[in-house]
């Protein structure tokens, strides 16, 4: 990129050390006015740290920040905002109990005016950039896409020169993402620079003129995304890790194992989602994938399937395992039917953070013969089980007595998945199995799932990562606002169609779920 004009932002040698990890190692980066620049890298590569440094949330240990030609220090976010830098966080920094206008007023500072005074400007900005928004609405009543608009409009209320977006499309359907790109291009055309943080290669290629790729805290390459292949970009991101291109043969599946029929559930929680007439079938020896943007009923469906949320006995037939009604059973009883679960949150749901791996093994495997005898825990057997999991699934840990919280995400996930697989489940339900996990661990997890499938187990995977679902699932469906789309063989559909399902564009009434005989 020719340096025809002064770069809006120029970073030189930014270094940041956290206890135990060098998050940023001598990073250089420059962004021109009106440029849409991608920051690529997998989880843990140091993207978040770098943007926090730019936005003044944390301070670098070494290195220089140049803003519009001048060397500056970003003391705090307020100072960054004053200079015209805005940021949209991945986990929104919005307050649900406050209105849109109150949220924006709070962020802009006392000088900008009261919420009431800001309302006209909010309306004006939201219309100008094609993001309709009602200032008086409470944030908790907004959809996730609308919340993102609040964040963006909050940045646009000021004279903005650089907008940083952290994985903005991870909460959007493909169609919503396209709308966002229209807004971003318009902004760039007005001269605003955009730093777009992502790990989705196709989006980066569609939107960004240039890219900086991070790996393990360092710049591993700079490129023009449109001129690079997926594989080239992925190599830059993860090096030569195996499993990048893994393709797994699809499977047909055999007899139905889990059947969910017309499962409806009213969620009394006003922040939650209610499920409507969900029909789903998982056969032995297949992986069914459920796509969807977070907050469309995944948590609720999972709770109903695992038994954390039970239905009254009269509705027990809505979830059946091999003909047995189970919707009224507790999780432990469902496990006796051969079910096993890997929840979305590893710490605080799937594992007790402060307990040892051994105790976390006992947590779900206690019904295994021998771990508990006459109400007493057999410590030797508990430890042996955990050690077996650690060994079989290559979990990196000093020993089985290590607390779950001190393992890395990938290793803990391998332990949790291994703990369930060693119980030889006939049905495994896993939510976001590779979320926040490094590429190596993700590949190992995928292989373990495929192996379990090939051994004849039924598997249901709920994930927000469409790519992952297309890679491993044999049939696929999508959740949208508590409704489940029809399921289709993965080989005979495409991401665009599933994207439409994620946006709720499907009709369940005329597509029979199952053709196999009951």
């Amino acid at each position, binding site marked *: 990129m020719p340096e025809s004009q002064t770069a809006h932002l120029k970073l030189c040698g930014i270094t940041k050390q956290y206890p135990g990890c060098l998050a940023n190692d001598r990073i250089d980066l420059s962004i021109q006015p009106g440029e849409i620049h991608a920051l690529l890298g997998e989880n843990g590569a140091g993207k978040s740290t770098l943007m926090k440094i730019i936005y003044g949330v944390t301070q670098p240990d070494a290195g220089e920040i140049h803003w519009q030609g001048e060397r500056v220090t970003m003391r705090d976010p307020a100072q960054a905002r004053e200079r015209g830098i805005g940021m949209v966080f991945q986990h929104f920094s919005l307050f649900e109990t406050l209105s849109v206008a109150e949220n924006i007023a709070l962020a802009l500072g006392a000088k900008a005016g009261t919420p009431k005074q800001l309302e006209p400007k909010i309306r004006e900005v939201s219309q100008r950039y094609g993001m309709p928004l009602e200032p008086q609405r409470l944030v908790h009543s907004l959809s996730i896409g609308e919340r993102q608009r609040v964040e963006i409009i909050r940045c646009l209320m000021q004279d903005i020169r650089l907008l940083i977006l952290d994985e903005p499309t991870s909460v959007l359907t493909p169609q919503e993402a396209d709308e966002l790109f229209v807004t971003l291009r318009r902004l760039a055309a007005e001269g605003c620079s955009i730093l777009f943080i992502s790990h989705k290669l196709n989006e980066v290629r569609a939107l960004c003129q240039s890219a900086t790729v991070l790996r393990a805290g360092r710049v591993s390459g700079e490129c023009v995304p449109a001129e690079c292949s997926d594989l080239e970009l992925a190599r830059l991101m993860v090096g030569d890790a195996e499993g990048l291109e893994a393709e797994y043969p699809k499977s047909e599946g055999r007899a139905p194992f889990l059947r969910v029929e017309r499962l409806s559930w009213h969620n009394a929680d006003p922040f939650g989602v209610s499920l409507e007439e969900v029909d789903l079938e998982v056969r032995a020896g297949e992986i069914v994938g459920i796509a969807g943007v977070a907050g469309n009923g995944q948590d609720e469906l999972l709770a109903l399937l695992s038994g954390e949320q039970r239905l009254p006995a009269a509705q027990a037939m809505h979830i059946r395992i091999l003909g047995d009604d189970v919707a009224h059973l507790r999780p432990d009883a469902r496990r006796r039917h051969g079910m096993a679960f890997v929840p979305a949150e590893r*710490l605080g749901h799937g594992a007790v953070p402060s307990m040892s791996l051994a105790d976390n093994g006992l947590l779900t495997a206690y019904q295994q013969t021998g771990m508990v005898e006459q109400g007493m825990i057999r410590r030797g057997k508990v430890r042996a089980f955990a050690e077996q999991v650690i060994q079989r699934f290559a979990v990196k840990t000093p020993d089985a007595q290590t607390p779950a919280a001190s393992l890395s995400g990938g290793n803990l996930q391998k332990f949790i998945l291994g703990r369930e697989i060693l119980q030889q489940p006939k049905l495994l339900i896993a939510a976001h199995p590779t979320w926040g996990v490094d590429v190596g661990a993700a590949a190992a997890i995928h292989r373990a799932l495929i192996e379990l499938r090939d051994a004849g187990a039924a598997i249901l995977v709920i994930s927000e990562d469409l790519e992952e679902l297309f890679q491993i699932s044999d049939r696929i469906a999508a959740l949208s606002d508590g409704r489940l789309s029809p399921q289709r063989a993965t080989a005979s559909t495409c991401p665009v169609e599933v994207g439409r399902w994620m946006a709720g564009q499907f009709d369940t009434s005329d597509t029979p779920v199952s053709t196999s005989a009951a």
Partner: protein
Amino acid sequence: MLLSLQPRGEASRAMLWFSPLLAALLTLLSGALLFALLGHPPLETLKVLLIDPLGDLYGVSELLVKALPILLCALGLAVVYNARIWNIGAEGQLLIGALAGSALAVNIIDWDSRWALVLTLLLGTLGGAAWAGLCAWLKTAFNANEILTSIMLNYIALNLLLFAVHGPLKDPEGFNFPESAMFGDATRLPELIEGLRVHGGFYFALLALVVVWVLLQKSFLGFQIKVLGLDKRAAGFVGFRDKKLVWIALLISGGLAGLAGVAEVAGPIGQLVPQVSPGYGYAAITVAFLGRLNPIGIVFASLLMALLYLGGENAQMAANLPQSITQLFQGMVLFFLLACDVLILYRPRLKLWARKPALVSAKEAPAT
């Protein structure tokens, strides 16, 4: 701030046990400072408070007498607090135990049978359990915060007790004192050693100690209670019956407190009086934390607390200090403990020495 805290990444096991000792030491230091400020010779006064009471066998016996109810209550609290159910109601459960036991005892003064004692103790234990059961019911059926309900039940229990000694249980021949009649001999817990007040409740405390230790350290029930306390969602995820666990933990806790209460009236006191407990149930809260919710730790902590009670009485007589010095020290030691506990998860750094965060070895990397 001059002091900065650095996360250790992993809890320090050494600090887990060092912190209570440090807290005790800081309490002693602050106590000495306080005495000096009030014009009492600090070391002399600390001796009066903490060493003099144990000068003879009688003193040791008194220490055990005071430690028993505290230990029983604190063992029960260890069970509920492991489930992160904040039962503040040991005091009320103790009073109800005393009241329930007394209600029976004053009606069977003439009995000779050993059953008199058994039934009295049983009724007291059940009374305490029932009082805690109220909390369990309010929590499981109505989602009512147990901190507030249990403390309200303390005040209600105290008023019930006062009502009883002023009314239905008042000794008709007691010159209108608010006290019950003295219990019959068959209802009294026997002295262990002739002439000393330490009594048969000692065996119950030992038994309770073993039972609670096995429950918390060895049993699957204890494991479930701990999981519920550490991580409610994980407990729900595997299908532990949370309401049942709340009930069990509170019933055990209340039962032990009730036993403590009835053992007081059937033991050293011998009748129901308004001052059954000088705040044993509250002291047990401090003891449970100081003992790290671990039965063995609690034994030491309750002995320390009993010593503070004895010392408080001694200080009043010998040094003319208010007896409330006991509670003052109780509060101090708990405060210091909580403050010192910061060392378990954090490494203190004085900003004066370390301007830049020092590099920490990779072994201690925090969870990612």
